[in-house]
């Protein structure tokens, strides 16, 4: 008897037919599904693309125009090509600001990461009122930077402020934290770490919460020391979160204007002038829009490179 009914799944599979319908090959169905998915993805991404173009695209193009012109705050000026970039790159002030930005970023990122990691590990253990401490330690991140910079100013600005008075009481002299160039740089960096460590603490706490504790028990049974457990288990398991937090903190540090400007104004003698502060001064105090925007462009290019490297590192760590 000749069968006219649809073939069974097994025989259809042997004949290379897809389970979806007669005659539909897997490839065609896959491409149809893929086309549908692509369409859905397009519509889901569209709002963010529109917003990105509107908010970032136009100012970016306008800034590119300004960076290649010798204008000021009122007019665009004449086209000068790469002259602004050349002038900026040959300026000692730019390299001094770049050096300070580099140190500020390194200390800001790794200082806050180390403090955040230490506190996250400490708060992971059972401590009385642990949750209260978690909330209290978030306050430096939550309090507006204007408020905290005022408080820090009050603490360190004059010889009669609280912290210089403590130093004097301990017989360590009267350090002028915001008047001495080196001390001012250190103070700004410490302030940045103080503001930023709660963010790192939150990120690391979230990453630590997802680590399975049985891994530690297994390692302990295998004779791993606490240090080995920390370096061989904890750090690798929070690596992805660590890279993300480093990227974000790098953004926060390099683009940080208020922390520096409100505490020291970039002084004394430009010791705490970062690239952002320099760009601001160039545009709004020297009224040289072109070089100011050129500084911002150079910063962006450098940071995009760092971003790509760290982004690849994240992808690598997630594959591993």
């Amino acid at each position, binding site marked *: 008897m000749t069968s006219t009914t649809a073939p069974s799944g097994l025989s259809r599979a042997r004949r290379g037919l897809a389970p979806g319908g007669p005659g539909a090959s897997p490839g065609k169905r896959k491409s149809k599904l893929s086309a549908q998915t692509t369409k859905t993805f397009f519509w889901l991404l569209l*709002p963010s693309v529109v917003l990105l173009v509107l908010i970032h695209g*136009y100012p970016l193009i*306008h800034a590119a125009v300004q960076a290649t012109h010798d204008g000021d705050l009122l007019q665009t000026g004449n086209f000068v090509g790469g002259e602004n970039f050349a002038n900026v790159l040959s300026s000692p002030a730019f390299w001094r600001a770049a050096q300070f930005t580099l140190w500020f970023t390194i200390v800001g990122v790794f200082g806050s990461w180390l403090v955040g990691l230490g506190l996250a590990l400490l708060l992971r253990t059972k401590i009385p009122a642990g949750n209260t401490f978690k909330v209290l330690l978030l306050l430096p991140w939550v309090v507006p930077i204007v408020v905290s910079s005022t408080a820090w100013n009050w603490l360190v600005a004059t010889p009669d402020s609280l912290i210089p008075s403590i130093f004097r009481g301990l017989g360590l002299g009267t350090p002028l934290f915001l008047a001495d160039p080196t001390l001012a740089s250190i103070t700004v960096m410490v302030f940045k770490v103080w503001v930023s460590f709660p963010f790192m603490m939150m990120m690391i706490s979230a990453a630590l919460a997802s680590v399975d504790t049985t891994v530690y028990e297994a390692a302990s049974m295998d004779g791993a020391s606490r240090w080995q457990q920390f370096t061989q288990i904890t750090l690798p398991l929070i690596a992805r979160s660590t890279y993300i937090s480093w990227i974000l903190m790098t953004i926060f540090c390099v683009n940080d204007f208020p922390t520096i400007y409100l505490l020291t104004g970039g002084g004394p003698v430009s010791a705490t002038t970062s690239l952002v502060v320099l760009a601001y001064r160039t*545009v709004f105090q020297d009224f040289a829009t072109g070089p100011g925007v050129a500084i911002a462009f150079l910063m962006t290019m450098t940071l995009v490179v760092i971003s790509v490297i760290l982004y690849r590192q994240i992808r690598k760590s997630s594959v591993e």
Partner: protein
Amino acid sequence: MSAVLHAHPESGPALGISETGKTRRVLSEAGMRGRWWRFVLILAITVIVLVPIMVTVVLAFTPGPNSTATGFTFENLANVFNGTLAATWLQNSLVTTLSTVVVSVAVAAPAGYVLSRGRSKAVSGYSLLLSCSPYRSSPRWFRCSSSSQGWDWWTTCWASPSSTSVPP
């Protein structure tokens, strides 16, 4: 009798197993001591960290240089609410915050879904572009734009939808 089997390196208390085989948490003397040491340590760190914030609070309730009040006072707070437009500022902050959160979540949630599910190079590239976008020194560039005709065009467009002037 309870035998301490294992003290977890990062969880503090040790696990104990009673003679009946029932697992229960037993804090050894060393564990308890360590716990209180950690408490003292975190308390000290918290106090040091919160000094600037405590200073802010103290200053808020301390009389100003031109004040006749002495000691603890609400004068500064009263001045803020009576002598300034604090209510308007608060309203502005709330409106800005709420609208930013709503728009950000509405736009970022669908995009985040695609970025997490999409495996194509286009999605990957867009993800990289998004991660780079905060690097743009936006406040400075916006200020630069706002100072010239560019931002004027923007504000005009947003202020009056009928405006069709083109950017310079």
